[in-house]
């Protein structure tokens, strides 16, 4: 059981930004946790997370609910999604996402990832997503993580916190 959390890096955007990358991630932890609070400057309701600059070999299962209906999807994709609040949602609201990456240093196992994310909106529709994802590229330690909106830019004041977790 993980019992230590160390903040590796944090960033609050001071202007709209197309993507954010945490590179040269230290190889001194057991797991990683990426905590995102973000908003899109325009349309685009997904934050796409990729590892080591790769946009292939990702698969996922997503359970989505919006308060009125629930659905489940699966597929091969170019990255792992978490919710992102588009500009059509209530002003100054942001998504909240936790992206958990256990055993990120393994060079023998594919990388299993889970995300737990919600979008905020003072209206009828907002979403909660739970994702089980796998990055099934040739096993390699994760040294960089990139977050990109599926369209347009992250809005000012979006925040990204990367934590390292040790099991002892």
């Amino acid at each position, binding site marked *: 059981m993980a019992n230590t959390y160390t903040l590796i890096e944090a*960033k609050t955007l001071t202007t*709209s*930004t*197309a993507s*954010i990358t945490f*590179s040269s991630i*230290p190889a001194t932890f057991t797991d990683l946790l990426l905590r995102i609070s973000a908003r899109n400057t325009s349309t*685009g309701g997904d934050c796409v997370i990729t590892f080591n600059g790769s946009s292939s070999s990702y698969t996922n299962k997503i359970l989505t609910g919006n308060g009125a209906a629930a659905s489940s999807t699966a597929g091969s994709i170019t990255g792992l999604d978490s919710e992102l609040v588009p500009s059509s949602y209530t002003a100054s609201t942001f998504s909240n996402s936790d992206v958990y990456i256990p055993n990120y240093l393994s060079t023998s196992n594919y990388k299993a990832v889970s995300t737990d994310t919600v979008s905020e909106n003072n209206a009828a529709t907002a979403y909660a997503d739970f994702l089980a994802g796998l990055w099934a590229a040739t096993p390699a330690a994760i040294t960089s993580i990139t977050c990109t909106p*599926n*369209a347009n830019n992250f809005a000012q004041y979006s925040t990204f916190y990367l934590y390292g977790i040790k099991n002892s």
Partner: protein
Amino acid sequence: MDKPTRIEINCTTGETSIIELTDAEIADMETAALAAADQQAAAEAEAAAKAALKASAKAKLIAGEPLTAEEVDTLVI
């Protein structure tokens, strides 16, 4: 107009770089923006259609009228 930028944070040194996107990356962004707008419009249309079916199903149930298969689908999981 300024080019869009991306941020890279080196977690070992703490150095933050702000990098302008290339023309190709900007073109990709514009394509993605169009696709996202289409996707959002389709999702909104689908949600509106489902809401209309559900309202119709409710009205017919109250009035004791037969439902269509699509209306039943909104009530039965």
